[in-house]
């Protein structure tokens, strides 16, 4: 009998539909394989150098332009694109003095074999500079300024420390937000941990996981496709001897890190705090580059497509808890792509601090198995300007390895002084 009632109800609904039910699917509707057009901006190649600890790691004696040049070279050499076809090279860089770094990047382009006709510029949105560089190139391609561009990132923290030049504006006394911009990042991490209840144990767990995943990724050769070895020299600190070496592995990750071993570390930024060196990202040298072009151009050249750039969003948040940036930026970028967060299959969420990364994962209900599957900045390092581009490379290569099941990926990071950025990529297999 209830069957009959159900059938009646269904039929009646056809005649007297409940007003505007609409669909709950905002839809992968438009972001689909079928929606690929020749005008999409696609990533054709993405490579990175190994991420090495600043001042002590493999790239400590390498000049910034020598870190950047190999990846610039690799993106054109390995794809066979003629360097003179590149319309622009945009390099994210944060700590170095602007004019000097811009010049170094230009020089790096020359070292990499680019002709003088290829322009170079830098961009600085703090931690997201590498991603911003990629987004800027994508936007310029869409705007028609050129067809092929390279978005890159470089940071040589062995050479450029974090520093503040000159005096601080006395107005910060009156303006809380401006004052909060001056907070050390570690203090913002403690603020996030306190405000949102992220415990020391949570943070250590994420840190241990990051290390374990990075170690496992290297063991299984997961990074081999994206890492460009850098031939450089190492100067022995004690003797001053120079030795030529080729750095081809990240050296930040550590095997055997467990929450128990991390628990021994002391909090650094606040008495009885929870942020330690073990659950913060490392200070690192590294560079990465991403080659972007229009899909029609890629087809014309017969180049395989690593992924499609879909959307980018940069948002602002409270500087005192800058770590929450991704929790706001990811929904913005995902929505702009016409998707929902549950549609995203893979995330590269920069682990500036385990506190903020854990908070963002919880806030957005992200599946742990989809976030930083090959380790994150806690294990690999966070070379500020490079990170965005490095995450793009890692994300796209991992998505490619996962194949058809992995369609959408997101790169996101928090930004000091209270911002967040995120970009959505699609794998077009």
């Amino acid at each position: 009998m209830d069957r009959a009632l159900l059938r009646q109800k269904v039929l009646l609904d056809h005649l007297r539909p409940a007003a505007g039910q609409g669909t709950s699917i905002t839809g992968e509707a438009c972001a689909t394989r079928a929606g690929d057009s020749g005008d999409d901006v696609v990533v054709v190649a993405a490579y990175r150098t190994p991420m090495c600890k600043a001042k002590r790691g493999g790239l400590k004696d390498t000049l910034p332009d020598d870190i950047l040049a190999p990846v610039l070279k690799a993106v054109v050499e390995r794809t066979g694109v003629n360097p003179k076809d590149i319309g622009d090279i945009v390099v994210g860089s944060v700590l170095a003095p602007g004019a000097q770094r811009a010049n170094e990047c230009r020089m790096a382009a020359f070292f990499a074999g680019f002709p003088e006709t290829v322009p170079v510029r830098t961009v600085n949105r703090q931690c997201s500079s590498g991603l911003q560089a990629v987004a800027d190139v994508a936007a310029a391609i869409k705007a028609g300024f050129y067809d092929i561009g390279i978005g890159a990132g470089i940071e040589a923290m062995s050479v450029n420390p974090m520093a503040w030049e000159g005096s601080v504006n006395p107005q910060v006394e009156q303006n809380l937000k401006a004052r909060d911009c001056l907070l050390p990042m570690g203090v913002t991490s403690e603020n996030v941990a306190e405000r949102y209840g992220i415990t020391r144990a949570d943070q250590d767990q994420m840190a241990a996981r990051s290390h374990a995943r990075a170690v496992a990724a290297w063991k299984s050769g997961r990074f081999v496709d994206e890492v460009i070895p850098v031939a450089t020299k190492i100067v022995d600190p004690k003797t001053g001897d120079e030795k030529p070496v080729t750095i081809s592995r990240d050296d930040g990750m550590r095997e055997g890190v467990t929450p128990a071993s991390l628990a021994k570390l002391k909090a650094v930024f606040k008495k009885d705090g929870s942020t330690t060196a073990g659950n913060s990202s490392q200070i690192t040298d590294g560079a990465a580059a991403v080659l972007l072009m229009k899909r029609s151009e890629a087809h014309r050249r017969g180049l395989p497509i690593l992924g499609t750039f879909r959307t980018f969003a940069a948002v602002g948040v409270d500087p005192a808890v800058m770590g929450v940036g991704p929790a706001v930026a990811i929904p913005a970028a995902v929505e702009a792509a016409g998707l929902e967060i549950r549609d995203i299959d893979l995330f590269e969420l920069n682990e500036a601090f385990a506190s903020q990364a854990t908070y963002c994962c919880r806030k957005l209900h992200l599946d742990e198995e989809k976030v930083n599957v090959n380790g994150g900045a806690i294990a690999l390092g966070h070379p500020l300007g490079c990170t965005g581009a490095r995450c793009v490379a890692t994300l796209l290569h991992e998505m490619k390895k996962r194949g058809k099941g992995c369609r959408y990926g997101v790169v996101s990071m928090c930004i000091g002084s209270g911002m967040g950025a995120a970009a959505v990529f699609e794998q077009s297999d």
Partner: protein
Amino acid sequence: MPIFKTAYNGYGVKFSPFLETRLAVATSQNFGIIGNGRQYVLELTPQGIQELISFDTRDGLYDCTWSEENENILVSASGDGSVKVWDLAAPPHQNPLKSFEEHSHEVYSLDWNTVRRDVFLSGSWDDSIKLWSLGAPGSLRTFAEHKYCVYTVAWNPAHADIFASASGDCTLRIWDVRQPHSTLAIPAHEFEILACDWNKYNDCVLVSGSVDKTIKLWDVRSPREPMTVLQGHTYAVRRVKFSPHHANLIASCSYDMSLCLWDYQAPEDALLMRYDHHTEFAVGLDLSTLVDGLMASTAWDETVYVWQQGQDPRL
């Protein structure tokens, strides 16, 4: 053209892909709400439409489809969730040949793959779509992503693995059998979508008919916006079918008791023809693949009409 009177309310009609003069009609007692069902197989003879054979079922039948590889195999969708397979050549006691009982709710739609010819789909009110082959004892795949009843499933005429489904959750979903999930979900209407079909001559175009009385044409390459919206029905659109012979021609039937023919490429005069021969909800519609212009329709008024496109069905 002749009329056939069924004993029960008609729900679905399908021309045979092998014989120009044969068609199957699925009917249910008491408008399909409760009661038995009957599957008719009708023959078009110079003397009118005659019943070749009929099969009775315990619960109402909502749709039927012919096999593409065997002219005697017919499949019916039943309200008790079963999919019944009939063999016309077998003796009555052996019929139904098979009864697939996996759906937990009414099976509302069936479609046989015209490219691969050995598999067919069933769409059900239990929100799932199942892929079947006669050789297998159970379903081969279940596609369960819809949030509400699946009203129609339709294979892509050009690609063996692609099909579309229309559901009460207001979305159209395109599926690829080779993929674990649907490849495209179009929030096509604001209300339930009752029908969908593919353009036989353009594998990227499909049409959807909805409770909101509109018919929308979609191109899967740009699914954000419909290509065209056809308005003209005054009640929910129950079935839409692309003509097998003309790329632009669409036939639709609706709860407003009328059938319409549309040319979706014509911007102003999309509505070509309106047939008002039914006196109850027009729910069954088919266009013959073998005879250009031959159409059949059935409705809750217990009638089956077969006519040539340009002519008046009542004559």
